[in-house]
Structures are given as structure tokens and as C-alpha cells.
């Protein structure tokens, strides 16, 4: 059995940010990530980030992964990194179990920061399991990380930021996007993205959903239909779209299995993607010493995940006695940054969700 002070589960934007802050204050930190490369889903994000300079605005996601990894390496005396390592259990006595290279390992930290992220939601319609129907993030991984085209022509389901950005990236890779449809009456993503896509000739059809997917061995055609103002499908409005790929980007749900297992209080908050952990302002859950940050704490943008990671790392380290005279100023700054990211009409849903959580 190994021992450490803080375990960070997941080396994505939240986890790396948490590890940097905790290690910079002097805590011994061990990071586990199930992938071979750190950065989580940043590695497939070829677009430039929004937000302010503190959140790496105007830098591409894939480059932010490198920046964070390099920053973490500055504290290498306090950091141990395990890639290709999956945390598979968290137990009441504080023990964590890890699968690494086909072997089983145990580690006992004094504190844990869970930054396991989220996974893509699915959509219900006949034949929704045909090959060719993929998560939008999955297609992004396939084409941006591995350079493989998902197919010839794509129908995108969901006009949120992921749907819009992945549509643009598909076109960058030379793949035809037939249309973007969304069940909501309004485009959910930023209008700057939507306008760019419309200028490239791709229709964005709101109040439309999938009626049926056609094909036997793989997707060949999709029938869509219109929804009325009560979200009910309107017979007679069907349209057929020929496509061999359908990308589904209808939201994400937190990957909170470890939090369930250890017994954290969870609450169902649809605005945050599903079941999320109850926690205080410092991102500590109902279980002492167990912190959360990023999408597992409620689905938002990677910018917010990085600030939450910094906050959780700062507070987890302080609890173990590693602090600085900057603590109050830093904490206030992170909370201000989060408030700014969640301000305005785009953040309304997040604010509504968080109001139900933080006691």
C-alpha cells in the first residue's frame, strides 16, 4: 500500500489545476489518469477559448493542456503522476484502489480531489444504436486526435457550443455537415459560433428532433420532424436527410460513480447535468477531505473547471496545513472569476443549478 497526502483523480483541466495549486503550496500530490496523456478532453479542443486572460482566453484547448502540464512539472518534487491508471474504488477507510497495467494497487491519501469529468448523453429514437451514430465529442476525438474522418456527411443533433464547434471542426477537416438541428426553439451556443457556421452554408434548424434512423449495418438516412411549442412532434413535417454519420451533442452527465460509492450526498440538478455532489463554497463534499472540481461537480465549460480546480487545490492543501498569507486573496479571486464566468444570460442555467446546491 502506498501513502500520499492528496490524490487527484483525473488529469483534465480541473485535475491539473488542482494539482498545481496543492503542490505549489507544498502538499505531496499523486495524480491518476486513465489515459496515456494528461489534459483530459482539452487534447481534442482545437478552438480558442473565451473568457478572460486568467482562463487562457484566445489559446487553443490542446495548447492549454501543455501549459498546465508544464506548470505542474515545476513542482515535480511534490508530484507523482500515474497515467494509464484508473481509480476504480474509494472506500470508507480512506483507501483508494487503482488498476494500472493489468495490476491492482492500493493507496491511502489524507485528502482526495475528484475531477473525473462527464460523459456524453444519449438520445432515444428508433435505431439509435446503428454504427454511424456517435457522440459529438467522440467524433472530435477521432478526427482531432487521431486524424480519422468519421464519414462523408454528418447530421449534427444539438446547437449548443459543442454541437456548433464540432460542426465547424468537421468542415475544417473537409467533411460535409448537412444540417444542425436542435429540439429547443433557440440556439443554445454562442451566436458568434452559430453565425460562422451559417455563413458557411449550413442550416441550423431549431424546434426539430430525430424521428427515425434508417439503415441496417450502418446509418444511411435520418428522418427528422418539427416540434410544436409544447415540444410535441408534428406529423406531416417530416424531412429526410441523407447522412452516414449522426453526431449527438445533447449535453453531458457527471461521471460521479466514485462519489456515489464513498457515500457523498448527491442531488439531482438537471441544470448541472444530472446527479451532482452537494458541497460547500470551498468545493468540499459532505465527506470530510473529499473535494470536487470541474464537470463532475456540475457540467460547465473547461474555463470554469480550471478555476474550480485551482480553488479545490488551494482549499484541500490548506486543510492539511499547507497555506500562504495569500490564501484569502486567492480564494476571493477564484470565487470572483467563477462569478464572472457564470454571469450574463449564458450562465443563467448554471446559476439556477448552483443555487440548489451550495448551502
Amino acid at each position, binding site marked *: 500500500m502506498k501513502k500520499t497526502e492528496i490524490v487527484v483523480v483525473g488529469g483534465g483541466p480541473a485535475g491539473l489545476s488542482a494539482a498545481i495549486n496543492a503542490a505549489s503550496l507544498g502538499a505531496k500530490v499523486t495524480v491518476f489518469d*486513465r*489515459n*496515456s496523456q494528461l489534459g483530459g*478532453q482539452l487534447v481534442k479542443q*482545437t478552438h480558442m477559448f473565451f473568457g478572460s486572460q486568467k482562463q487562457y482566453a484566445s489559446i*487553443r484547448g490542446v495548447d492549454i493542456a501543455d501549459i498546465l502540464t508544464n506548470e505542474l512539472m515545476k513542482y515535480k518534487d511534490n508530484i507523482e503522476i500515474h497515467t494509464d491508471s484508473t481509480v476504480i474504488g474509494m472506500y470508507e477507510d480512506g483507501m483508494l484502489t487503482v488498476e494500472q497495467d493489468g495490476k491492482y494497487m492500493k493507496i491511502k491519501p489524507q485528502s482526495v480531489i475528484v475531477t473525473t469529468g462527464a*460523459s*456524453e448523453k*444519449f438520445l432515444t429514437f428508433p435505431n439509435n*444504436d*446503428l*454504427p*454511424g*451514430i*456517435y*457522440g459529438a*465529442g*467522440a*467524433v472530435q*476525438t*477521432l*478526427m*482531432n486526435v*487521431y*486524424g*480519422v*474522418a*468519421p*464519414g462523408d456527411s454528418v447530421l449534427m443533433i444539438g446547437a449548443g457550443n459543442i454541437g456548433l464547434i464540432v460542426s465547424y471542426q468537421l468542415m*475544417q*477537416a*473537409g467533411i460535409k455537415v448537412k444540417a444542425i438541428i436542435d429540439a429547443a426553439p433557440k440556439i443554445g451556443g454562442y451566436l458568434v459560433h452559430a453565425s460562422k457556421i451559417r455563413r458557411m452554408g449550413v442550416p441550423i434548424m431549431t424546434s426539430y428532433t430525430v424521428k427515425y434512423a434508417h439503415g441496417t*449495418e*450502418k446509418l444511411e438516412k435520418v428522418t427528422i420532424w418539427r416540434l410544436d411549442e409544447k415540444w410535441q412532434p408534428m406529423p406531416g413535417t417530416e424531412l429526410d436527410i441523407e447522412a452516414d454519420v449522426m453526431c449527438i451533442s445533447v449535453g453531458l452527465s457527471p*461521471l460521479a460513480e466514485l462519489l456515489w460509492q464513498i457515500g457523498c450526498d448527491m442531488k439531482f440538478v438537471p441544470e448541472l447535468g444530472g446527479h451532482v455532489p452537494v458541497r460547500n463554497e470551498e468545493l468540499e463534499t459532505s465527506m470530510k477531505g473529499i473535494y470536487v472540481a470541474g464537470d463532475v461537480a456540475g457540467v460547465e465549460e473547461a474555463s470554469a473547471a480550471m478555476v474550480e480546480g485551482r480553488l479545490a487545490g488551494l482549499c484541500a492543501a490548506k486543510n492539511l496545513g499547507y497555506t500562504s498569507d495569500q490564501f484569502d486573496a486567492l480564494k476571493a479571486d477564484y470565487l470572483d472569476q467563477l462569478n464572472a464566468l457564470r454571469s450574463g444570460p449564458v450562465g443563467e442555467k448554471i446559476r439556477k443549478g448552483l443555487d440548489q446546491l451550495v448551502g
Partner: protein
Amino acid sequence: MRIEEHPILSFKKGPKVRFTFDGKTYEGYEDEPIAAALHAAGVRTLGHSHKLGRPRGFYCAIGNCSSCLMVVNGEPNVRVCVEKLKDGMVVETQKGKGDLR
């Protein structure tokens, strides 16, 4: 299909390797996911549903959804969307839940 030209990205690829899928020989790049190599070669059906045997492709591509389980080097239930391709790998279609040897 491989993306040959891209305005922003250049793809780091490992050396070319050979593997078999259901007895037929394919080429791919070392350490890319098996699913990426198969998809590039036009193979989209990876797993099959247990009861009805319906064809399944990948869905999440990050090892979450279990839509892409195949038999690799005799081991069943391998998530080929995250399992790295190595030279000489034997990849097979999995029927049912797979047997542990």
C-alpha cells in the same frame, strides 16, 4: 478514411503496423486506438448487442460506454476505442458476453 490535410492540426503517428480483424490483414499506426485503425479502414461495426446481436459502432470513444467491445489477442470485452494498436494484434468480432479463459 484518414484526414490528410488540415488547416490547424498535424497528426503525430507511430510506425505502420499490421493486425488482423476476423482473419483479414489490415494496416494501422502503432499506439492509435484499435477503433481508429478499423474506422480508417472502413470498418464501422465493432461490438454487437448481447441479445439481438445488433451491430454497434463506438459511441463515446473515451472508454465509457462499452459499445465497442471486441476480442483482442483472445481476451474478450476489450474497449477498442481506448486499447492501443500493436503490431501483430489479432482482433475478432465478439458474439455474446465472451468467455474468460
